[in-house]
């Protein structure tokens, strides 16, 4: 720890909802303002911006605000910035920022993820769905077979787990049940009602074995994390959280050529870069755009053996707020909304600062893991409060 490290300082989040009418740039501003206020920083002290996946003109709801636009709109003088989709996943924007502050490119970097998918779908006149005659790139290997959603791609990994390792619906349900129980305690969560096992088991299938409640849903929100240089912490008024290790590895960049998802090599790489071990971790915030991804992350990070993820979370006690390894304490994406990766790092910082209020885990937590991504996309952050 020290001057050469990167830290998460201010964190912020806009209103989280569906079909919001507030402009996505202003949602981003709301999250920026909250993060600046918490850190005691002014916008003039921000000298870097990093985002995922950058503005996506063909799918503006997926990513409506680019880093270049934010820099211009907020009058930031950036000495370093980046935004793009060709990175290890959503939280890759944070690993990029961490490297930037560690190499002196910037001192305080706004990292953000703004999503506007529910609003865009509700207002097609403003956010038209692009029409393409033909598909190319990676989607040509899935779309012609009507494998049109990451739910379908992820379901095939989950099905292998079912058939090879015996994952049951009751085990898989624990990700959604835990997330929804925690979301009920999070005032900003998209879904505030708990989910029962009976409701889960009665839900319609989307792509077997994934049912409706195994999937996150389109959300409008912005989440901001400020990454600061270790030698700039004297400018910051909040408790800094150190990025103790980070990883984002892939073996085949493909949803169907890889034997398993990229979280597995990423999880192994994370522990090779730190002296911390799994037993030091007080809480895990694991990507659950689809519930099975969180189970894969538990295995990938070595909290249990590969194939044991379902049995590891059986009954849900171990991953509950008062369990030995509280998971997705804000609700995950299934409960809190599709904040798309950034919600996990945001919540890790909330918990490590003891600011979780009704959902705060006991025991003065000091170390957390936050991850993003599924399929060929994976980023893991090990976060520590020193």
């Amino acid at each position, binding site marked *: 720890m020290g001057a050469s490290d990167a830290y998460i300082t201010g964190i912020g989040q806009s209103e989280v909802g569906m079909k919001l009418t507030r402009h996505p740039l202003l949602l981003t501003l709301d999250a920026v303002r909250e993060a600046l206020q918490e850190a005691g920083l002014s916008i003039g002290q921000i000298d870097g911006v990093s985002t995922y996946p950058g503005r996506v003109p063909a799918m503006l709801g997926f990513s409506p605000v680019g880093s270049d636009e934010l820099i211009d709109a907020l009058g930031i003088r950036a000495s370093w910035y980046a935004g793009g989709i060709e990175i290890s996943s959503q939280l890759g924007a944070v690993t990029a920022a961490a490297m930037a502050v560690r190499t002196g490119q910037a001192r305080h970097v706004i990292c953000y993820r703004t999503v506007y998918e529910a609003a865009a779908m509700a207002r097609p006149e403003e956010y038209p769905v692009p029409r393409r005659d033909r598909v190319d790139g990676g989607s040509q290997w899935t779309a012609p077979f*009507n494998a049109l*959603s990451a739910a379908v791609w992820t379901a095939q990994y989950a099905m292998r787990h079912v058939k*090879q390792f015996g994952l049951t619906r009751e085990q898989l349900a624990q990700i959604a049940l835990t997330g929804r129980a925690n979301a009920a305690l999070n005032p900003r969560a998209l879904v505030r009602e708990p989910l029962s096992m009976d409701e889960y088991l009665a839900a319609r*299938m989307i792509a077997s074995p994934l049912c409706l409640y195994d999937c996150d849903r389109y959300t409008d929100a912005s989440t901001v994390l400020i990454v600061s240089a270790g030698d700039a912490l004297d400018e910051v008024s909040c408790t800094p959280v150190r990025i103790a290790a980070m990883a984002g590895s892939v073996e085949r960049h493909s949803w169907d*050529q890889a034997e398993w998802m990229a979280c597995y090599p990423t999880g192994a790489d994370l522990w090779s870069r730190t002296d911390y071990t799994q037993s030091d971790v007080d809480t895990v915030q694991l990507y659950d755009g689809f519930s099975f991804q969180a189970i894969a992350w538990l295995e990938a990070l070595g909290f249990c053996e590969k194939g044991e993820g379902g049995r590891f979370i059986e009954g849900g006690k171990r991953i509950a707020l008062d369990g030995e390894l509280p998971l997705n304490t804000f609700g995950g994406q299934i409960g809190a909304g599709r904040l798309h990766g950034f919600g996990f790092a945001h919540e890790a910082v909330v918990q490590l600062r003891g600011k979780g209020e009704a959902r705060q885990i006991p025991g003065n937590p000091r170390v957390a893991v936050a991850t993003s991504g599924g399929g060929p996309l994976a980023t893991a952050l090990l976060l520590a409060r020193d």
Partner: protein
Amino acid sequence: MAVPRPLPRLDSSNRDFWTGGANNELRLMRCLDCATFIHPPRPVCRNCLSENVATEAVAGTGVIATFTVNYQKWHPAMEVPFVVARVAPDGAPGVYLTTNIVGCDVDAVEIGDRVRVIFEQQDDVYLPLFQKIN
């Protein structure tokens, strides 16, 4: 499925794969130097970086490596349920094809099932679908 499928844009790398069905051939790219199969097809071998690559026909049989039954209508005209599967073609180690298993009940599909290719033509594209070998 009568509803038109999204079709690939054909180019020099993928044309053989998507049109081999006109000759009832499942064609995969292969390195002529080290014999590694290259999928998705590209003009370079990912094992030895040789540019000496060409497509060749494989048997057209294979094994279901995993699958899902898709129940969600991702657009209103979609006919559900149907099976999306990942098939490992015989004779092409390391290659998987995302495809549909057709010609059987969706509940009749299992990992490890033996399958054979059947091509569905739409415009200038021959989609390699698979059906179970009884």
